[in-house]
């Protein structure tokens, strides 16, 4: 049987993490292809329901990533994102979603190396964790 390959749905802010992903690419850094990137203008625009929908549709992990604190292109969107992730981390694990499946990171535009490292680490962690229950079972 082939090894379990997790699906990671990633919401990246246009200004920092998405640019870092671009930089990792142009720098020819290699990282696992498990990630499906959705570019958003700011981590602060990620409605909790985007994360919930991704999880229920069978994503093995969801990664939200934005600018470092103080660096937000829209001044404070990333602080708002952090509160929403905190909120989701109080709700989703109550229904059996392991906390490791939802991650928030700050990756600066210049940090292609960190980007590749985060992708490797998260993919590894999810491989160890195995597939998400929503992928295997019927969700109404």
């Amino acid at each position: 049987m082939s090894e379990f390959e997790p699906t990671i749905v990633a919401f990246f802010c246009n200004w920092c993490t998405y640019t870092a992903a671009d930089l990792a690419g142009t720098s020819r850094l290699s990282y696992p292809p498990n990630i499906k990137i959705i570019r958003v203008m700011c981590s602060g625009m990620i409605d909790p329901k985007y994360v919930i929908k991704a999880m229920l549709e069978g994503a093995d992990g969801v990664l939200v990533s934005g600018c470092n604190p103080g660096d937000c292109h829209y001044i404070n969107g990333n602080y708002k994102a952090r509160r929403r992730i905190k909120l989701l981390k109080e709700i989703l694990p109550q229904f059996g979603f392991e906390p490791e499946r939802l991650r928030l990171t700050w990756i600066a535009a210049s940090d292609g190396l960190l980007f590749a490292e985060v992708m490797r680490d998260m993919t590894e962690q999810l491989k160890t964790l195995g597939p998400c229950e929503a992928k295997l079972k019927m969700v109404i």
Partner: protein
Amino acid sequence: MSKTAVIDVKNQDLIETLRDFFKTVLEQDEISAIQVPWRLPMKNMVMPTLITDPERLSGADPLSPAFPMNSAKIVSRLTRKEAGGIVAAVMRPCEIRAFIELVKLKQGRIENLVIIGIDCLGAFQNRDYFNWIENDGEESSKKFYTSVLNGKGAAADGIDLSPACQVCESPIPMGADIAIGLYGMDTSNQILIQAETDKGENLMTKFQLTDEEEPPSRKKAVEKLVEERTAARDNMFTETHDATDNLEKLTMYLANCVNCYNCRVACPVCYCRECVFVTDVFDHEPSQYLRWADRKGAVKMPTDTVFYHITRLAHMSTACVGCGQCSNACPNDISVMELFRSISQNTQNAFDYTPGQSIEDKPPLSVFKEEEFEEVVGID
């Protein structure tokens, strides 16, 4: 900012005494109208009713176990703009808490409102109330409050308080301008009246009541009640958690849901003017359903049931006041209140937030601090 007095109960008739008090309030020059739970003349149902004629207060029934809706939404309608007069509203504690949440969301205003809170004796679920109520509605109410206030419990003719009321640890009004105390009082003789704001105090001064101390028996009675309710609540949390702690169990818990969204219509703190779940966002292309069905070979219709409930939790759980109207509104007897209160306990604790406690506390998702919740950042 606190003034305490007692009112004598005439002929041991609590309802009549409260009606007289409401009359006194309405007769003040500055009060244009009073909203009270009122027994409809055409049927034994008690509804929030706006009254301007003091004579009409003879139908007020503030201690009935009927709780057809959370009146916070009604008071929000009455106050969202200038009404051209001051309105007094008689509300249950959970209605006041919900209203305060709506005020924070700019969906109601306290400026031209006097909130009168009463110790809550609890309520039945709608269906239980309909089955229980006899021809003489007022007699039934009397039977109910006499039993509760004499410590004999609410269970009457095999009907107990609604599940939400059984686990309600906040039966004493907070945030009211004037609070009426019943627990721990000798209610065949006296009830307690307390002004809790400057507004309430100004109004109360006009009633010419003699100041009195709160009897020590009250504090004790309230503490005992809160302790019992808190214990019941914690048991409910444990049971609900055990019934929903993985996705399969949660799916089973919600399996009777037909996406009617009554729970969010009934919810006083579901504040969106238009819920996303009834917008075009969820008008999926027919071909989309086929693709969804194809993925696992079957898709339950209507879709997005669990998604709806978890999203609603994310939207309003920090503001949940535990009134239980969601369960009351469910046509298929899903224990919505239990699920929402259990999760709300977590989310409210996480942000150290008590909904309805103070108009000054900002809703948690409307504010942030630069240094907080570092533990949710990173992938270690």
